[in-house]
């Protein structure tokens, strides 16, 4: 096999992983853009989405469905998890964040951390559900296998280079979502309202924009993207666990910051960058240093571009 093949394989892996990170990162970046909150609970909402997907899969017995039925099943999980995560994220905003809009950003942050713990614990309980897919609830804390209903076979035959249906799934779901989201933010009334609230909530409310509803909608959309991501993540990695939200959230947050927090294309670029850096570092350096390298690159980029790759310099009015 050629070295080039190894490189391309790592690039494909990196891009797939990066796309998933980017999808979670968008949820962070949207919420941050509008109320400047690092939504720590986002990763855990994402985790619960994956649990819902597995529950659906188990309850409906999707493993037994034929290939075309499973495509339908994937669509069902995507929609189910998106609605669920969106709703959950919206409720978190309604219950835990809205009352703190006027207080300091740090109180809001602690509230988000609290939500993160609560969601994580709910995931632990969920993992103990007496279902076959959860190993009959025998060990709630153990990681759960997510059946590979999108098979991990090589579409390119027997060569070294592998592209699996799961890789394709990542791209076919993620790219339209991102395009659609960009369109929504740029073109629709809700998108304009969101940008207005992000710029200046007071002015926006004076202009008759229902600020709380717009923020709620942002949480819903951010959460829904997390829900999509959770299904794709599960189908790609085939393992879920109640603590996976922390790490996924951390990666996504890093991606959001790397790209310039608040910027949608930035989050995507950041996610892809991190995915590729990880792959390349795994291949050409040592795996144990991968995290360190990712963060060193983050610091380096921020030294030279303090607002991230695509972040705008926000000029403070003086």
């Amino acid at each position, binding site marked *: 096999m050629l070295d080039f093949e190894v490189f391309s394989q790592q690039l494909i892996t990196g891009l797939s992983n990066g796309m998933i990170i980017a999808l979670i990162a968008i949820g962070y970046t949207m919420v941050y853009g509008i109320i400047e909150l690092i939504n720590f609970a986002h990763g855990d909402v994402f985790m619960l989405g994956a649990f819902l997907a597995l529950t659906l899969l188990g309850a409906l017995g999707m493993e037994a469905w034929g290939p075309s039925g499973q495509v339908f099943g994937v669509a069902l999980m995507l929609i189910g998890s998106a609605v669920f995560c969106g709703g959950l994220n919206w409720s978190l905003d309604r219950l835990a964040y809205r009352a703190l809009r006027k207080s300091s950003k740090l*109180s809001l942050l602690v*509230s988000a951390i609290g939500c*993160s*713990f*609560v969601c994580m614990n709910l995931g632990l309980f969920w993992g103990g559900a007496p279902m076959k897919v959860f190993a009959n609830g025998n060990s709630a804390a153990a990681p759960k296998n997510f059946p590979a209903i999108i098979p991990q076979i090589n579409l390119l035959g027997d060569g070294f280079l592998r592209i699996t249906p799961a890789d394709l799934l990542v791209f076919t779901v993620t790219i339209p979502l991102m395009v659609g989201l960009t369109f929504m933010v740029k073109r629709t009334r809700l998108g304009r309202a969101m940008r207005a609230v992000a710029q200046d909530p007071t002015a926006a409310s004076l202009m008759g924009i229902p600020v709380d509803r717009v923020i709620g909608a942002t949480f819903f959309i951010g959460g829904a993207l997390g829900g999509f991501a959770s299904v794709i993540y599960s189908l790609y990695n085939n393992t879920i666990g109640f603590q996976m939200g922390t790490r996924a959230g951390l990666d996504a947050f890093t991606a959001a910051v790397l790209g310039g*927090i608040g910027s949608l294309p930035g989050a995507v670029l950041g996610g892809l960058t991190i995915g590729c850096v990880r792959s390349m570092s795994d291949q050409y350096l040592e795996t144990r240093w991968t995290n*360190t390298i990712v963060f*060193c690159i983050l610091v380096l980029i*921020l030294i030279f571009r303090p*607002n991230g790759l695509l972040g705008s310099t926000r000029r403070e009015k003086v």
Partner: protein
Amino acid sequence: MRWRPGPIFIILALAALLPLLDVVLPPKMQLCEAVRGVFLYAILALGLNVVTGYAGLLNLGIAAFMAIGAYSFGILTCEIYPFQLGFWPALALTIPIGAFAGFILGAPTLGLRGDYLAIVTLGFGEIVQDVLKNLDVVTKGTQGINPLPAPTFGGSEWTAEDEYKWYYLFFALLVLTVFAVRNLERSRLGRAWFSIREDEIASRSMGIRVERTKLIAFATAAAIAAFAGGLSASVLSSTGEPSNYDFQISILALCIVIVGGIGSIAGVLVGALVMVGLNSIVLVKATAWMAANGIGSQGNVLLSPNNWKFLIFGLALILAVRLKPNGLIPPRIERAKQ
């Protein structure tokens, strides 16, 4: 002016008297050892309070400095390394080492805006753990460094059984930290920190050297955290493993500062008591009691008391900031009275 005891004084006085309570309590209910943990986190959170509370810089990687402190204490004292310093010199050295680490991280990144800095500190926390894990040769990797010395007073070295000695040592060092932080708070430097937190542009325009002032805050916090790290390594006689100083510790310290009252020393002390107390006293004793009385069941995830800890901790955080958005003891606005 008539002197009235402030909240800090009252809290510290109560803490000083706590061992008396232990004498009358049954062994299972004794609190000193757990409260020592509260003191440790209080020291850590006082450090974080300097950078996040006073200077307004969100730091999500304070545990990394604790790890640096613990590991440098370990390397400087343990008999498997050639340095073999005693307890006091090594503990004193953790302070400049921590400050230096804070400087290394702070110098290139302090130009960053709020949340960009937060992610860098978070990343630093991860890097430090990784480095400590990966540099086997130096740090013994995940193995941990042990045994570590305890202070010696009157000939023999303390052991873990000398609970009250440790208790008062921690107490004394906490009081020392409180005074140090308070002295800084009520000085030119503290004022500059507050001004940066309030309005960076205005304080810059008043000639405050923002980067330098932030850097001092950063290094001070790092030094205090490293000090706390050294102390905890000493009492455990082991550095533990690198992942004992992970993100969760930083988060706990942050919660202490914010739930207690950002920028308020008394708030931090109360916050440490509430948060750590909930975690390592109330929840621990409650689950132990339930287990001892055969309450709950391991078979069902919902009936196992241990499985509720995250939930209770999380709800406590949400409720605390909901009910007291400015903290349990918010700082007094006028700092001028001295």
